[in-house]
């Protein structure tokens, strides 16, 4: 007998190892990336909203508003604009997926199909916008 309580040593081993393994497993799962995309897109949209409302409220002065709209045709602004709309599509798709998982009980293969559909929808919105003049 070493004099150390055997239970304590065993508990230390049990606590340390599985947490790290689960972390790696969780992060390699598509649902983890769906969570990251949903969260980051939500943050981007939340930061963009006040700017969007401010820009729209400039419509009282149509010439100034048209100058603003002309500015949005600059390549860098247009790319940012497309990225924001794609973020909106991604947040919508991820949100609908969450509602289906929580309230309709989509599990397993249905969840994977939902992720594939979400990705397809986001790509479609991005392509449609990029094709616009």
């Amino acid at each position: 007998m070493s004099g150390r309580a055997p239970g304590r040593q065993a508990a230390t081993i049990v606590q340390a190892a599985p947490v790290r393994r689960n972390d790696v497993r969780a992060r390699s799962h598509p649902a983890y990336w769906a969570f990251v995309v949903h969260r980051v897109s939500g943050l981007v949209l939340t930061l963009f909203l006040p700017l969007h409302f401010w820009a729209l409220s400039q419509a009282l002065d149509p010439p100034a508003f048209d100058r603003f709209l002309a500015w949005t045709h600059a390549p860098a602004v247009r790319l940012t604009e497309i990225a924001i709309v794609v973020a909106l599509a991604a947040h919508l798709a991820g949100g609908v997926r969450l509602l289906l998982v929580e309230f309709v009980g989509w599990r397993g293969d249905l969840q994977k199909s939902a992720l594939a559909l979400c990705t397809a929808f986001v790509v479609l919105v991005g392509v449609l916008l990029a094709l616009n003049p």
Partner: protein
Amino acid sequence: MTPAAAATWRWLAQRVSAAVLAICVLVHLATIVYATGQGLTAAAIVARLHASLAWPLFYGVFVVAVAVHAPLGLRVVLDEWSGLRGRAVDVALALFALTLLAGGLHAVRTLTA
């Protein structure tokens, strides 16, 4: 209200607003793709919003839902990613919700006046 009851109400408000926003955002995305394809101008935006009372009503509902949804989402992110929580954070988020509500309704009113 107990903290558990408040958390339940926040969860419910987040889900109900998400369901409303799912429809609003789908319509908004279709409008964005269509309107930018037609060439976006101040006159075109104002004309579209004046075409039917349904548009200002739609955007009014959209703004209310987003003013509920975004601050509640931000609350979760602040809590989980930065550890920021407590009464001061809740007050700041309530002010943010009111700012979004006022700013959004002002924008809708400007475009439909």
